[in-house]
């Protein structure tokens, strides 16, 4: 690991002043569960870490008129403790439970979950986010892409978004608040993510000199039936192979409006619009859930070794839908 400066600000404003205008100057340091391993492997080499754990207003969960506000530095375990006894927002609760390492859950933060970097093994082994060889050719299409994207993968990005919480947050139409030198801006969680167009772009729309401060879940989320289903090879500390988070506005057994968001299958959380359309106005049962699963894979573009993920998406969507109304 390269030597670095360490800043320990006590306010967001102070923290922003310590950040740089590009990623190599400084990095925001919260739980560190991802950042430190990236630094140990020299995948990122920021000159300065800006610790935000000491900033009080970034911690905790509070209710505002518009909805629930979660401080970005709140540990996942605190979220779990908040949601679990209240049995609210089950899609989010299941996603938190899916972070099956207690160490990760205790140290990892809500904001860090959204901003963690992809697990793509080419990226993590030093071939860059777009995974190219020394001649600039992409490695993923002809490489071992068993864990890579089946949507949004027409190039140049093939990795999958690793966030556990994002699919559920997108399904709830949640927002994030971002503070920068020019003040605060609020964007949808979905807009926090993008498919990078070139090697200069990151997979998040946040700028180097900005800090994700809060996550806002609109009050309307409480009026949904929701669920998350993750397909995982192991119960023990493992990334899901595919995830579906659904939030449904119901009228009796009829779906008025459906949000179906996929995780681990595209460079961003992936909204399955065809599935949402297929559900609108339908009575939700095994048959409609199955056809929604089928609709969810419309437009899938599997690579040489990840065709099985198409099947996993079908099943994850079907099972999340059935779990939401169970």
């Amino acid at each position: 690991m390269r030597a670095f400066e360490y800043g320990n600000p006590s306010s967001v404003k102070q923290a922003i002043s310590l950040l740089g205008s590009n990623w190599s100057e400084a990095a925001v340091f919260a739980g560190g569960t991802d950042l430190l391993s990236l630094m140990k492997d020299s995948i990122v080499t920021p000159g300065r870490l800006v610790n935000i754990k000491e900033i009080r207003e970034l911690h905790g969960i509070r209710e505002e008129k518009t909805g629930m506000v979660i401080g970005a530095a709140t540990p996942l375990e605190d979220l779990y403790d908040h949601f679990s006894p209240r049995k609210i927002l089950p899609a989010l609760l299941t996603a938190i439970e899916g972070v099956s390492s207690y160490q990760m859950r205790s140290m990892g933060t809500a904001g860090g979950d959204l901003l963690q970097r992809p697990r793509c093994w080419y990226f993590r082994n030093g071939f860059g986010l777009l995974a190219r060889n020394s001649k600039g050719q992409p490695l993923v299409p002809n490489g071992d892409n068993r864990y890579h994207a089946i949507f949004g993968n027409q190039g140049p990005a093939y990795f999958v978004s690793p966030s556990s919480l994002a699919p559920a947050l997108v399904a709830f139409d949640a927002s994030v608040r971002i503070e920068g030198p020019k003040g605060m801006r609020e964007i949808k969680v979905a807009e926090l993510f993008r498919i990078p167009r070139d090697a200069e772009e990151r997979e998040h729309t946040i700028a180097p000199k900005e800090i994700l401060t809060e996550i806002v879940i609109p009050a309307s989320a409480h009026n949904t039936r929701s669920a998350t289903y993750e397909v995982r090879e192991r119960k023990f500390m493992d990334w899901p192979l595919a995830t579906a988070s659904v939030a449904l506005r119901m009228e009796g057994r009829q779906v008025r409006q459906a949000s179906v968001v996929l995780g681990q299958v595209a460079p961003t959380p992936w909204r399955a619009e065809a599935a949402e359309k297929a559900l609108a106005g339908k009575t939700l049962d095994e048959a409609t859930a199955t056809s929604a699963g089928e609709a969810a894979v419309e437009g899938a573009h599997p690579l040489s070794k990840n065709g099985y993920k198409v099947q996993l998406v079908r099943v994850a969507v079907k099972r999340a839908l059935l779990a939401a109304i169970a």
Partner: protein
Amino acid sequence: MADIKWPPAADRHLIGKRISRIDGPLKSSGRAKYAYDQNPPNMLYAKLVTSPYAHAKVTAIDTSAAESMPGVHGVYIFTPVGKEVNWEGQEVVAIAAETEELAEDAASRVKVEYEELPYLVADTDPQHAGEGRFRSLSEEKTGDPDQAFQQADATHEGMYSIPVITHCCMESHGSVAQWENGKLNVWLSTQNVSGVSGEYATPLNIPPANVNVQCQVMGGGFGSKFAADSWGVAAAVLSQKTSRPVKLMLERDTELLAAGCRPSMHAKVRVGAKRDGTLLAWDSESWGTGGMQGAGVPRLPYVIEIPNRRTHHTTVFTNIGPARAWRAPNHPQMCFLTMPALDDLAAKLNMDPLDFFIQNIALTGERADVYKEELLKAAEMMGWKQKWHPRGDKTPGPIKRGVGLSIHTWGGAGHASNCRCTIHPDGSVQVALGSQDLGTGTRTVIGIVAAETLGLPLEGVQVEIGDNKYPPDGASGGSTTVGGVSSSTRVASTNALNELFAKVAPSLGTTPDKLEAVGGQIRVIGDPSKSMPWKQACAKLGATPIVAMGERNSTLISSGVGGAQMAEVSVDIETGVVRMEKMVAVQDCGLVIDLKTAESQVYGACIMGTCYALHEEKIMDQQTGTCLNANMEFYKLSGLDDIGEIAVHMMTDPAIENRGVIGLGEPPVVSPGAAISNAVANAIGVRVPELPMTPNRVLEALGKGGKV
């Protein structure tokens, strides 16, 4: 002296009981010191520079930038300019520095230039390997397979594959080396305490006697830790050069890249039987890779000697990594190429594989009756007859359950061993051997044998191992340790006791041959009223302790074991996810010294087997020659929630115990791959031909893995 024997069952107070390992509290409280925990004063840390290429020639090494950093004290070159590296992660340079961070920083500033050379990292068949990349190792024919296939009522042809995996020791390879006054002390994580000193002698230019090797506890070796290894020698040479202790432990990525691989094996198998299941013929075309040095020749079919058979095996030379003995070398592979093929044939004959195996049990040879008994015992523990169904669980819903079985064998004769037993005048007892405890319970077994022999409680014996200053002992490989150390300890303790008997016999008014040691007393056989407490007896030694030696004794040990395992799985046929529900392991290994640590060995083997059946593989990128999963994130092992229930039964009837002590470490890890694969086939109705049975492979076998 009478012939040396094990005590009869009725007289055993410790042997064969369930006894907790004596170093358990030390380990569970974190007080046990592993090589990694040794921090002698003034110690330097060494870090490696390794090859990023699968095959390359080193053309230049520039260490000047690293060496000019304050706090960098030593450089060691493994692969000088002009030499080749043959796998990613192979060691090239080591740097020793004041701190771990500095050493790593300095290592990153070493500039190595390479000429990239052609490589092969595909675990491919010989036809696709390319010229010079394979060698036919053996072609054998027994009986008349062609004619036998014609006589067969049913034949089955299949392809079976078991990949390259690594040892993935929880404690990585490495050591702390301390050069002091012309001598070397080394704390080495090793399976070979008594045998490695010679590897240091030449590079350090000192006699082997000046090398002290210590390993009190270790976190797994599985066959990959017999040698000092190049990085062990590097630590020693750097210590000699700098006159400071040097710690060099492999990082996890290097551990997975360079510290050893289990060779792969693949086979096209054809097997034929009569309508009643009687096996007639076998034909296999097999290949596999053990890196650049090739791998062993499988004996196929495994355990079940089908009378008419033809086998051909080819080794493929690849740059995937260096092959090393992996717990039961060749056996998990041979087992996986055999048992699933037989299971598939049984399915074709609509036979319950239990009936099918028993029908053919005579083909296992002279221990056929034991195998039969083990299979029946396993069936009872599994509830096989209630759980088994023809291929494909027909119950509704996506979760399908199934059961599968396999049998295996191993040798396990005791290695050369020397034990020194000392009885002190204060009554304390030490037994010392230059052996090692890999985590298997060796230390406890030695204590049990000595205490049983001397009629003392286990706490009455101090066991000294893990240091080459003690009498030399064999390397712990091939499941040879328990036979070696138990017999030499029995002999040494008996010899010491006989000397003690000679001292105390006059006081008890008898001759030494009329004495026995039981329950902390020396007493006259048949007249318990004439006795003397142990301490009082030892006081008769005056100032001189008894020191007696013992060697391995072949009348106390034997070799050749068998075992039967059954697995029960549930498979989600919509996602391809396999869950272990239950594993049953029935195992014989002669006389069991400590039932608890023996059972623990089998539990551990079942877990290790579950890992390689369902998750483990070394994943290589063909375009760059590099390994994609040299970490614990994607080199997957099972977690506690993933292993299901494990039920172990050790065969301990008198006929088996009378064979003497036989090794156990390896055999129970042989069958899980085959048994779990057979269980999956039973559940879902089709064979997943390749391990590990990850969701992508299961869905592909089910025809659901393809494109949209």
